[in-house]
């Protein structure tokens, strides 16, 4: 996976030593039991996603007219849906789609945010002003609404959802990248470097990027859950992933009509989604509290 490991602070230049020295403190896993449990749950989802073909008892898109809308039983542990598809298998495969969409769209958002944020932070004058207003404008639209707008242009499908959700997340990433760049820019060593007429790109590469990448990586891990939520929301609205893809949002939407007599159809994928989101948000909180020095700036 392309998630940055927490080892990244070693990439910091010596001018800014890591905020937390590794003095004999207890391991993060012992200090934060909830974090550890949440991490195990999240890892379980990742494993289920990777080994879905081996774990799932049925083909997730296999329809069985003889087993339509069956309540959970030994044959179908989580029941079947209105097409007779096995919900457990669909939930397991759903993890695959959720994680793939979540991770890739966040990466798109982070890449876009990095470019715009760097440009806004390093340029000056009217260009900076214009880029800032652009960021403001993107932030003026909630990510789901933005994603809906992009879907309107792009159309539906897994790849389209990844792009739409990714583009919709550029705003917050750009804002944090710019804030980080501004901080680095004030620090003396960058000014000194520019004074010594080192090529501009080299300054960015050597001094600015290392200071921006680590907080960005933290942001990426934190925002995966947001991306998953937005993408499953799109599917729930019926404008994201198309059937019969085993997507949780889609499954919840399909089950909605039958909630009065087949509540499990929505509930099972729903709990899979909710549990993953809660686990990811606990993991995200833990990572932020451990690694984000700016957390103390305010709520």
């Amino acid at each position, binding site marked *: 996976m392309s998630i940055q490991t927490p080892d990244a602070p070693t990439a910091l230049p010596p001018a800014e030593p890591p905020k937390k020295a590794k003095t004999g403190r207890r391991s993060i896993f012992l200090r934060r039991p909830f974090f550890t449990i949440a991490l195990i749950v999240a890892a379980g989802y990742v494993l289920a996603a990777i080994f879905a073909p081996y774990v799932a008892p049925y083909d997730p898109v296999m329809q069985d007219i003889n087993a339509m809308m069956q309540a959970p039983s030994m044959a179908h542990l989580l029941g079947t849906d209105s097409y007779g598809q096995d919900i457990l298998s669909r939930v397991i495969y759903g993890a695959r789609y959720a994680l793939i969409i979540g991770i890739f769209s966040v990466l798109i958002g982070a890449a876009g945010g990095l470019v715009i944020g760097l440009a806004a932070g390093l340029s000056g004058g009217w260009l900076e002003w214009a880029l800032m207003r652009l960021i403001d404008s993107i932030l003026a639209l909630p990510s789901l609404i933005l994603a809906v707008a992009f879907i*309107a242009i792009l159309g539906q499908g897994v790849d389209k959802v990844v792009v739409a959700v990714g583009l919709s997340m550029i705003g917050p990433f750009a804002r944090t990248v710019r804030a980080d760049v501004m901080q680095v820019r004030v620090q003396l060593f960058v000014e000194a470097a520019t004074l010594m007429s080192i090529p501009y790109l080299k300054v960015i590469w050597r001094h600015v990027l290392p200071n921006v990448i680590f907080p960005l990586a933290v942001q990426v891990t934190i925002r995966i859950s947001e991306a998953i939520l937005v993408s499953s929301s799109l599917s729930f609205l*019926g404008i994201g992933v198309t059937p019969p893809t085993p997507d949780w949002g889609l499954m919840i939407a399909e089950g909605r009509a039958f*909630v009065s007599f087949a*509540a499990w159809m*929505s509930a099972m994928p*729903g709990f899979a989604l909710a549990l993953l989101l809660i686990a990811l948000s606990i993991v995200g909180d833990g990572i932020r509290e451990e690694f984000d020095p700016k957390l103390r700036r305010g709520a």
Partner: protein
Amino acid sequence: MWGQALGKIAQTLVVLFVVSVASFGLLKLAPGDPIQIMLGSEFSQEAYDSLTAELGLDQPFLAQYADWAVRFVQGDWGTSYVARTDIFTYAFKEALPVTLTLASFSLAFAILIGVPLGVLSAVKKDTAFDAGAAVLALTGTAFPSFLLGILLIWFFAVKMQLFPVMGYVSPWQDFWGGIYHMILPGLTLSTYFIAMITRLTRATLIEVMEQPYIAAARARGEPSWRVIWVHGVRNIAMPLVTILGLQLGVLLQGTVLTETVFNLPGIGQMLTSAVLGREYMVVQAGVMMTATLFIGVNLLVDLSYPFLDPRLRARK
């Protein structure tokens, strides 16, 4: 103070301008030829050209934008060919009131439940109550609202039969009926905000309660309920309003989902059906309205600071 306010308003207008250019560009980027869609499957080249000229689509981009912007401001938003109505009337008079009603209901729920919960957590810091509230708050911020909505429908409407399953009744026409129909959607949408406000209230109030003026208020013989609610809570108003303004986007996008769950004919439903019907003009209208709301409310939040915190008012 007024100079600052004018600056804020100017900045807001610029952002609105950028959003409008982008949402106009959206229309241009959309696949398919709008003229073709409007004319249907059979048309002559003449009709095509005349309609192109009539709609000004042969003009350069900026001229087209200016033309569009003028008409947009005048309320001429075009016609929805699926709903066969004027988009402005549909969006503004039918969809927007529904969304605003839902949003304000949820906001009221969130404040009425979240603030007391946060205050109690802060006062009972590090007790079982506090821990319980923290777990609820964490779950509340992470739980997908549309799933919660379905669960609420299942439990309160289907099993208990306490509330209607779905549908919208305008509280302007039937006040109690409106409220009755808004309770489940309002609760669904506000859960995230209840959780967020609880967390924020707890954190900021704990900080405020350590300020010397709190000890001073106690030293004057003020009973603890007054110390907390009059001296403490008054001073968390500003961070609270700030966060509510910034999180308004979450509220607006939440309405989209909640409207779908409960079948409320608001902007969310308008947007979703417009995407499915490829009605770009309606999508554009929805995007513009959402952005304007968000930007407008945040402008109001900015302008409200001097009223919330006297220290930001000019010295006499």
